[in-house]
């Protein structure tokens, strides 16, 4: 259980998160949405111990995350960042780096178990055939999958992702989110994910968190949050909301400025 209590966070004099209260239970699939600059990524950075809160506290199973030893924290919480570094190493070497939190003191080589876990996470994400390829020669979608494989190699209970589908085509978007959904359901991995795409968020996430100007504007199910009035208020742009005929989930479409009159009629 992650509990966030009255957290205020920022960079320099600027306050980005302004009083956040939130609790996330184990096994959830939570999507964080909101306009640019609303504090989504900052919330992720606060929850993953990158940025210390100025006020309030963040507890993981009742313990302040800043008191948990760093290695211990990394064994429970894994993060897939927005941009995966294109480092000159092979896919397999990259995934094996995910085992670093599990290294014992003075351990020099990976153990058989480290290799097994890396192997399994490459298999789950479908990047096993890429194992010998260089990271800087992969496509954006492949690199994202490899980054997820590395995070899984940490064997975390909590997985944070910052826009895992940015810059990907729809086939890759669906492939990655299907994979995440399956991980969430089959191995009870808790997922907290920042998404820009409201439709993907509505389609996949069991619960949504809509942020605006450093505060939580609304939390609830996709149907509750992806409401025309709420979205238009927060994003400040006219939208049309409908239902996906196949999945019965809500979708949000932007409405160009010239076409607004039609709706008024």
């Amino acid at each position, binding site marked *: 259980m992650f509990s966030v209590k009255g957290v205020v966070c920022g960079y320099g004099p600027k306050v980005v998160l302004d009083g956040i209260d939130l609790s996330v239970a184990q096994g959830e699939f939570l999507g964080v949405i909101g306009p640019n600059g609303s504090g989504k990524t900052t919330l992720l950075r606060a929850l993953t111990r990158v940025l210390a809160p100025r006020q309030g506290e963040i507890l993981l199973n009742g313990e302040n995350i800043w008191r948990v030893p760093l290695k211990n924290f990394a064994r429970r919480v894994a993060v897939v960042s927005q941009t995966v570094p294109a480092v000159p190493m092979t896919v397999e070497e990259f995934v094996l780096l995910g085992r670093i939190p599990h290294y014992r003191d003075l351990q020099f*080589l990976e153990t058989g178990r480290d290799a097994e876990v890396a192997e399994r996470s490459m298999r789950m994400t479908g990047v096993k055939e890429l194992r010998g390829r260089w990271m800087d020669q992969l496509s954006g979608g492949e690199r994202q999958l490899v980054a997820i494989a590395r995070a899984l190699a940490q064997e975390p209970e909590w997985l944070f992702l910052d826009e895992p589908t940015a810059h990907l085509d729809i086939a890759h978007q669906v492939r990655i989110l299907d994979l995440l959904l399956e991980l969430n359901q089959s191995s009870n991995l808790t997922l907290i994910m920042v998404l820009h795409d409201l439709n993907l968020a509505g389609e996949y996430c069991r619960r949504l968190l809509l942020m605006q100007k450093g505060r939580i504007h609304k939390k609830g199910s996709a149907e509750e949050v992806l409401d025309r009035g709420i979205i238009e208020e927060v994003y400040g742009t006219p939208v049309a909301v409908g239902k996906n005929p196949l999945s019965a989930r809500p979708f949000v479409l932007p409405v160009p400025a010239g076409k607004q009159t039609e709706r008024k009629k």
Partner: protein
Amino acid sequence: MIQPRAKQWLFWLWLLGALALLAAVGALLIGPSGIPLGKIFQVLWNRQGGIEHSIVWNIRLPRLLLGFAIGGALSLAGVILQGMFRNPLVEPYTLGISGGAAVGVSLSILLGLSRLSIFSMPLAGFLGACAMILLLYRLNAKKKVLSLQGLLLTGVMINFIASSLIMLFLALSRSEDLQGIIFWIMGSLDEPNGLLIKIALVASLLFLFITYFFHSDLNALALGEEEALHLGVPVERTKGLLFVITSLLIGVSVAVAGMIGFVGLVVPHFMRRIVGHDHRILLVASFLAGGIFLVFCDTIARTVIAPLELPVGVITGILGGSLFVWVLTRKGGGTV
């Protein structure tokens, strides 16, 4: 998988070990008075002997050991800095620490302190380097966060200031001091004091050992600071410790041997290409290769115009620089 990787690493270690032995034997045999191969082992084994014995034991062996120590130290410092800064152009002399050492040494020559004791020049160099480490740290560590970008920029600027100061000292100094400063700046493995050689050797081996405690941290830092943090690496502590370790390595080697350029830039690059980016093999491979490269260059430097000697920095620069350009511009050699 894992086993083959470890096997490959062992292979590189054997190969570099063999090359090191070859470079060492070459350095002992080759010189103004050649010593035949058959005789070298006899000379090394017997405790006393004639002129060949004293050439090997008093001149060539100390120089060989110093070559390995300095070459290894510079190259190790280079590989750590390039890894930590994620910047292939950083080298031991980028951070301004060598500039501090150079100012210290030239001051000691200018003020006549260098005539007091054989240790005063290296000591002045080391103190200059330490002063610079403290200054750089103070300037760039704010609220327990060490800014690498700031470190790089201030380091480069401080080097400019240091070289201007040295030019000022050169302009002010008398001609015999002038030569002393210039020779020191050019760098040389000609170090008559046995104790200093031992210090350099012990320090560089000790630091090689210590850096192995950071092998997985360095591997994680290759992904960036935030990614390393997510892998449970205490990034700020690691950066600070590695900065101090590399600074001391640079300080010791510059204080004892002056500014021998190019080893710390070129050797880590080559080793990354050959043995890969994993610091578990890269650290020791760079250390060995740096030693081999410097000993090899020094052997050339003292024989091409014998009985005169070229500054070893001339050879490392010409040889290392042209090798580097060749590898970079070779077909398919794009990524570093």
